[in-house]
């Protein structure tokens, strides 16, 4: 290290290598551009020249009609967003409670552990749509006093029931992934098992499962559309109403595009988060 940082000049050999590398890079860009144009162009030609394209364009991609139904579908989407926010808070609380019940070893919590396991088995194993139908139509049929018959609340409840089972399993795997030596270190410092869980195990476990939790959040946003089967006027139902007026399916495409505008940024964010987490982990191993 006799040379000072920043004063090093690349050797002629290195300069030559840089020229070659730049040429290789230009060639890679050219190849990927050409192959993209060829593949996507071919796809577009196949679709547009197909015999039914004229009919499909007018029934699925009618731009004027799309503009006309947009406000109604968008209003429905706002309901999906609201339900997603409310449901995710409830899911976080219930999911965490289930995960803690399943991972706890306390003797007094044995019945809760059994109940939580049965709960997770049940709601993870039944299709979401069936849970929505059973809760949405079954609970009002019981005619219990004091229990709501609002389909919005019942539908959201059904989704919360299902998703808290998913989220509980994700959180549980996060809790179990924290090495036992962390708990031992916490206990040896005098922390009770509850304190060790709260200050040492949970913060690390939850951090590790943020990417899968974000995935579940995106799925949740989409699945709030399922409660349209109960007659709730969300984006999906609004699109259905509009399209049944005109026998034109453009409203469905409008709804799909609106969902995509929400979910694509969310999934990109998740990807970036996962990427950063992996990089950090690699840096740790290397350091």
């Amino acid at each position: 290290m006799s040379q000072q940082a920043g004063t090093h000049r690349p050797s002629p050999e290195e300069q030559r290598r840089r020229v070659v590398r730049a040429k290789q890079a230009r060639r890679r860009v050219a190849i990927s551009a050409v192959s993209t144009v060829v593949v996507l162009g071919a796809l577009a030609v196949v679709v547009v020249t197909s015999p039914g394209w004229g009919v499909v364009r007018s029934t699925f991609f009618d731009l004027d009609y799309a503009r006309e139904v947009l406000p109604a579908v968008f209003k429905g989407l706002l309901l999906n967003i609201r339900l997603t926010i409310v449901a995710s808070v409830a899911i976080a609380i219930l999911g965490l409670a289930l995960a803690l019940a399943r991972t706890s070893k306390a003797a007094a919590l044995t019945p809760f552990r059994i109940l939580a396991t049965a709960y997770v088995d049940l709601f993870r194993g039944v299709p979401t749509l069936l849970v929505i139908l059973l809760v949405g139509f079954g609970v009002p049929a019981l005619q219990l006093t004091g229990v709501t018959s609002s389909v919005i609340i019942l539908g959201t409840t059904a989704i919360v029931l299902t998703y808290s089972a998913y989220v509980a399993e994700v959180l549980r795997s996060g809790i179990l992934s924290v090495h036992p030596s962390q708990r031992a270190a916490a206990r040896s410092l005098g922390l009770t098992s509850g304190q060790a869980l709260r200050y040492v195990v949970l913060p690390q476990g939850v951090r590790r499962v943020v990417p899968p939790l974000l995935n579940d959040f995106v799925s949740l946003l989409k699945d709030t559309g399922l409660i349209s089967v109960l007659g709730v006027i969300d984006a999906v139902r609004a699109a259905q109403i509009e399209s049944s007026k005109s026998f034109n399916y453009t409203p469905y495409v409008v709804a799909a595009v609106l969902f995509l505008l929400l979910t694509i940024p969310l999934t990109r964010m998740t990807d970036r988060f996962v990427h950063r987490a992996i990089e950090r982990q690699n840096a740790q191993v290397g350091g």
Partner: protein
Amino acid sequence: MTGTPVLRVEDVYKSFGAEQVLQGVSLAVPEHTVTVLIGASGSGKSTLLRCVNLLTPVDDGVIRLDDWDITDPDVDPDQVRRQIGMVFQSFNLFPHLSVLDNITLSPRKVHDVPRARAEAEGMALLERFGLADKARQYPDRLSGGQQQRVAIVRSMAVSPRLMLMDEVTSALDPVLVNEVLSTVRELKSEGMTMVIATHEMGFAEQVADEVCFLSAGIIVERGRPEAVLHDPQDQRTRDFLRRVHEAGRL
């Protein structure tokens, strides 16, 4: 060295399944003294330390901390651990907390020390052990030696009655071993009562008041470090020290 020993281990047995790890170990550690446990891997050193910290329950025998039978099933293990500091081979710092938060977690949550005071005391400790500039860093930014020194400071922060160290230098490369050992030496000079399991014979000779050589779950030889390490009486101790010597660790 008068009065009741801080730690007394009386005829302790422990097995994991068919494997008998401790087969009647007895030990007395007077206040302000350092007992060093040596022996091959699997001789029971770590298990003995884990039993003292109640991380592993004993199968038989009694362990007393200041005359308090801590192997009594009615004893609250948390109460015991609050008086015993333990440092592990693998550091076990909490990676999601800064160095200072690692140190103040137990004082704040277990001993109800207000945050400001806990942090002031934590900073004073870091200062003393030359780690003050690392207070706001996270463990993954520190070298192994620094991490282990933080782990030692973390155990010191609750003013333990007794300190247990389980091969605290085994995960470190030779250059970093010394900084950790000098931290341990400093604890000794302050009068901390310690039980240390180690493979560093030179270090054992420097800090130990008593050296115990464990083999197959029993203490086969014990005494002053110069006696046990340089003039061993038992054949098993001689064999072990010769192997260590051949490996260039003495």
